[in-house]
């Protein structure tokens, strides 16, 4: 009897310990919702600490916005709808991937334009240099020297 009591006590204690050792629960029970919140908050900028994503930031606004995203995700809104909601309020700056539109053309294509310009410049310069180096006529004096050297060899 005493033994049974002990075993039961130990089992109970183990159960308690097990409950304590449980991993930190996600903030929302629905795994899909929590995954969507995580995905979106990694794509969105925290406006308080501007070089951090909403996922990284501990600012109060970031926490509020994550909560807001969570509420919207629970309602079944798509990534696009949630992003639009935030862009409506905070502008394109909240997005880490800026959209392609007239005001961001320079941002998207500026580096490629610079690369292309540099490439063309380099090409033209090299071609001009090759031309001018190859077509220099020898003076009479130089020709004589060259011939002398060539003859010496043979």
């Amino acid at each position, binding site marked *: 009897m005493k033994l049974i009591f002990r075993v039961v006590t130990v089992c109970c204690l183990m159960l308690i310990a097990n409950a304590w050792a449980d991993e930190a629960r996600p903030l929302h029970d629905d795994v899909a919702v929590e995954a969507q919140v995580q995905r979106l908050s990694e794509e969105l900028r925290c*406006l308080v600490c*501007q070089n951090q994503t909403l996922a990284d930031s501990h600012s*109060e606004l970031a926490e509020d916005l994550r909560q807001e995203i969570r509420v919207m995700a629970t309602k079944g809104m798509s990534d696009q709808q949630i992003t639009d909601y935030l862009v*409506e*309020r*905070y*502008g394109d700056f909240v997005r880490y991937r800026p959209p392609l539109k007239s005001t961001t053309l320079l941002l998207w294509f500026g580096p490629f334009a610079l690369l292309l310009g540099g490439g063309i410049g380099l090409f033209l310069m090299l071609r001009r240099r090759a031309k001018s180096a190859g077509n220099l006529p020898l003076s009479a004096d130089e020709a004589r020297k060259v011939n002398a050297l060539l003859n010496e060899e043979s």
Partner: protein
Amino acid sequence: MKRALLPLIIFLVVVGFLFVGLNLDPREVPSPLVGKPAPAFSLPRLDNADKMISNKDMLGKVWLFNVWASWCGACRDEHHVLVALSKSGVVPIYGLDYKDTRLDALQWLAERGNPYVATAVDENGRVGIDYGVYGVPETYVIDKAGVIAYKQIGPITEAVLRDKILPLVKRLQIQ
């Protein structure tokens, strides 16, 4: 001669870009809300929690909507500007007490003077999100039709008030 000038020109263009970039404040993110109707809200008043205040109450007049909080350090800097403006009676100022406790907010106003016709209490910051608030203080100029005409991010200084806000308010008032 012409070829020697080219690197100099490129250098000057780069310097120009960098110089402009240095003088831009990265905290001033242009608000997409300017030119759009002010987001609707209906919140309890700070002086009387049983009474509600809504943006629709202000339709038909030009008003300033100032987001503030008792915990906000920069709000202290602009407070005397707001008090002076409210005494001049040029334009009514309404407040949004953002993520604050009622007691602290009331005490703050009692100590420093109350420039607001009324203050709405946004305890959980939901209305702040609708207005795209990310750094208190922020101030919106809203026209007679309820459209946001201007957003000031950060404290209102005397210079900002004189050069930007007051001329805009006067223009909107005669519209």
